[in-house]
């Protein structure tokens, strides 16, 4: 990697005084920076800090209210992705923009040929793609349907798409959010290769260790403003974290302690898969009182199956399933609630809440029939009191209980869900991706509450794709891969790389052979 300073003379990219408002919200406030040839800039900030908006402006998907974007000295016309592409800007979006029913090469070629052209030269396109895959270590089969690829492979297709268009500037929006540690390492290798060949990279992230590993320079955004710019070699994770949140960060402390009695036990449990998603394959799992059990794994490897099983949506096809020593019979969400299982669902918008219901209605969604109804009539007064109490106790920032929940931010929505679960004092808490998409303040709040529930003797199952989160909070860690569950590893006995190997599916065979 070349340092930023020797080629400062001619920036490949210059953002000047970019401002963008969405209604009352100022997403970007007078942001300016330069990118040099062969440089990697990390754009660091919490969710909602304006990173993605800024890059969407650069790429022409949004039009800025003020400010200009210059690429190789030329001002880009605003709101025109085509112009950005033609100028050599390639963007890999956080949510991939790929068509699943098209093949890899078709996705890559899309938009590169004149629409009036009479033929597509498939052969030449595939040859060029093969050449690029070799040069940049991006292994992928050009003839495969994108819908059948893994997330890591899809990301490679996205990068190939940019390289195929001869991008000189690569923008990657949260590229590692969906990757295993090994896949992330491979991505970094590709990026280093690209930089070595003269490309420049903007790397958007909120993961500090990645920023430290890959970037030459770090730019920190907070509430839409550029608050700091540091040469990465001259800063530290602690400083960047403080800059990012605008103050000291306090993550909950988890003290090691002996495990309580087993509250939930799965022995050799299998479930039927759902479409292409795998079911569980002979899973053994025990959740103990007073422990947080972390479940790591790349998404789509059976986490949903396990979460559906525990929350009552799916019954086991075979194997034993006991709660506090009693086998579960007929299994349903209602029975799961009755047996003391509290659920924080993976998707707070779709299954956690009903968007157009108000906070009162959402607060009593799980208990309205038992606790807030009499003789078949709703007791709205009691329900409202409950909602007010949750709002106060769990610090839900909102205009009031009659607000429709869709108007709340993700963090406040999650606090309400958390309150709804914890108020019933559940013995077992299923927390599926409880902090996905939340900012650090809300993350620490949710983690703190889960840690408290652990102190009070609940068994917590924490499902997450974020290894850092799993490793910080969990007393025991399991890894899922293709519906199989690894043995439990106690706190401090496993390194991220080793867990990553399990996430990639290694090790399961040996266990099966040994048993």
């Amino acid at each position: 990697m070349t340092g930023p300073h020797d080629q400062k003379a001619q920036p490949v990219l210059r953002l000047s005084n970019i401002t963008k408002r969405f209604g009352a919200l100022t997403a970007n406030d007078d942001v300016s920076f330069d990118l040099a040839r062969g440089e990697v800039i990390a754009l660091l900030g919490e969710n909602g800090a304006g990173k993605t908006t800024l890059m969407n402006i650069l790429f022409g998907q949004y039009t800025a209210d003020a400010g200009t974007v210059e690429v190789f000295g030329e001002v880009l016309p605003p709101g025109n992705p085509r112009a950005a592409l033609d100028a050599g800007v390639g963007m890999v979006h956080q949510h991939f923009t790929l068509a699943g029913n098209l093949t890899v090469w078709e996705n890559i070629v899309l938009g590169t040929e004149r629409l009036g052209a009479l033929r597509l030269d498939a052969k030449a396109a595939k040859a060029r793609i093969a050449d690029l895959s070799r040069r940049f270590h991006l292994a992928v089969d050009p003839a495969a349907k994108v819908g059948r690829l893994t997330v890591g492979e899809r990301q490679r297709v996205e990068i190939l798409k940019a390289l195929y268009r001869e991008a000189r500037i690569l923008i990657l929006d949260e590229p590692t959010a969906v990757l295993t540690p090994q896949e992330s390492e491979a991505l970094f290798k590709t990026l280093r290769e690209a930089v070595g060949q003269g490309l420049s990279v903007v790397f958007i992230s909120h993961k500090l260790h990645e920023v430290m590993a890959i970037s030459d320079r770090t730019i920190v955004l907070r509430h839409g403003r550029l608050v700091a710019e540091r040469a990465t070699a001259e800063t530290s994770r602690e400083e960047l974290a403080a800059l990012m949140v605008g103050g000291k960060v306090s993550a909950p402390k988890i003290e090691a302690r002996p495990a309580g009695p087993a509250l939930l036990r799965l022995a050799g449990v299998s479930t039927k898969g759902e479409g292409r998603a795998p079911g569980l394959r002979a899973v053994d799992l025990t959740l103990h009182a007073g422990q947080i059990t972390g479940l790591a794994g790349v998404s789509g490897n059976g986490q949903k199956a396990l979460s559906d099983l525990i929350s009552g949506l799916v019954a086991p096809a075979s194997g034993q399933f006991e709660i506090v020593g009693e086998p579960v019979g007929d299994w349903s969400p209602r029975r799961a609630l009755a047996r003391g299982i509290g659920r924080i669902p993976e998707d707070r918008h779709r299954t956690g809440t009903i968007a157009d219901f108000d906070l009162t209605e959402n607060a009593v969604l799980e208990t309205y029939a038992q606790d807030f109804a009499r003789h078949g009539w709703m007791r709205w007064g009691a329900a409202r009191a409950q909602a007010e109490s949750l709002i106060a106790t769990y610090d839900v920032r909102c205009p009031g209980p009659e607000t429709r929940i869709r108007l709340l931010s993700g963090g406040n929505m999650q606090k309400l869900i958390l309150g709804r679960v914890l108020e019933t004092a559940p013995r077992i808490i299923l927390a599926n991706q409880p902090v996905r998409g939340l900012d650090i303040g809300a993350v620490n709040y949710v983690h703190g509450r889960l840690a408290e529930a652990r102190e009070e003797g609940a068994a917590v199952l924490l499902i997450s794709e974020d290894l850092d989160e799993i490793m910080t909070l969990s007393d025991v860690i399991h890894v899922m891969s293709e519906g199989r569950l690894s043995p439990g590893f106690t706190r401090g006995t496993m390194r991220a790389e080793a867990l990553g190997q399990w996430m990639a599916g290694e090790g399961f065979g040996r266990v099966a052979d040994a048993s």
Partner: protein
Amino acid sequence: MDIFEILTSAAFWAAAIRIASPLIFATMGELICERAGVLNLGIEGIMVAGAFAGWIAVYMGLPLWGGVAVAFATGMMLGALHGLLSVPFGLSQHVVGIGLTLLATSLTFYTYRVVLPEVSSPPKITAFQPYPIPGLSEIPGLGSAFFTQTPLTYAAFALVALVAFVLYRTPLGLAVRAAGESPAAVAAQGLSVTAIRMGAVIVGSGFMAVGGAFLTLSAFDSFFFDMVNGRGWICIALVVFGAWKPGKAMLGAILFAAFDALQIRLQQTPIGALVPYQLFLMMPYLLSILALVLMSRRAEVPAALMVPFNKGER
């Protein structure tokens, strides 16, 4: 005459191909729309309008191919209305489509009354005549069935090849397929999803109208109310049956047409005298539903079908 005799007769297959032709036109039209992500339920009304427009144009003195062109243009205009409401305005495609069918049907009947106020039975035109293809039509067996058809039938089959070629072998087809699967991917390449979808709906609707015109200009020689008679809805099912692939959809159209030709002939057999004829009329639909259930379970629906796309929305 037993079933085997029917199935091996040239007359039976000639009828099946003839009945399939309008379905093929309209199915290709619908397939283009749906591949771009727009369900066009205006198809039934567009076929009625096309049937009338083509016929009245010829009645007024245009040549037959002029009538086809007028029908195509009529379909494109109705398609533009559907596209405008469903693509840039992003309205519910179901509501827009059904509304368009009602509008186009009523407008057609109204125009008919305005243009021909005094007429009790609709006038006839000279329709397309069968054109035996030299050589091919003389192939013994079924050669005469397939190659003694009207030029419009040949055009229907040529259209299938054309649609397949454009969809799978040209950059334009790639963009259309991508627009129906992941409009965001199209927009990210700086292409206009709106333009691609509008274009697909307009051209697709044009072909639907030609499907309607086949009835008045080739199958029959006049225009009747209710002559389209649900063919549009059948075409919607044929697109699903064909798993959004032109060749398979064409085979579906021929299969359905063969059932239809078969039931007409079965009515004239000894069994036909015993069973109410309505039962035979029902048969093609029943068999279609059965085939649909068997064939389309694993079909890959365009992922963005019926999903409006708004640029700049998160």
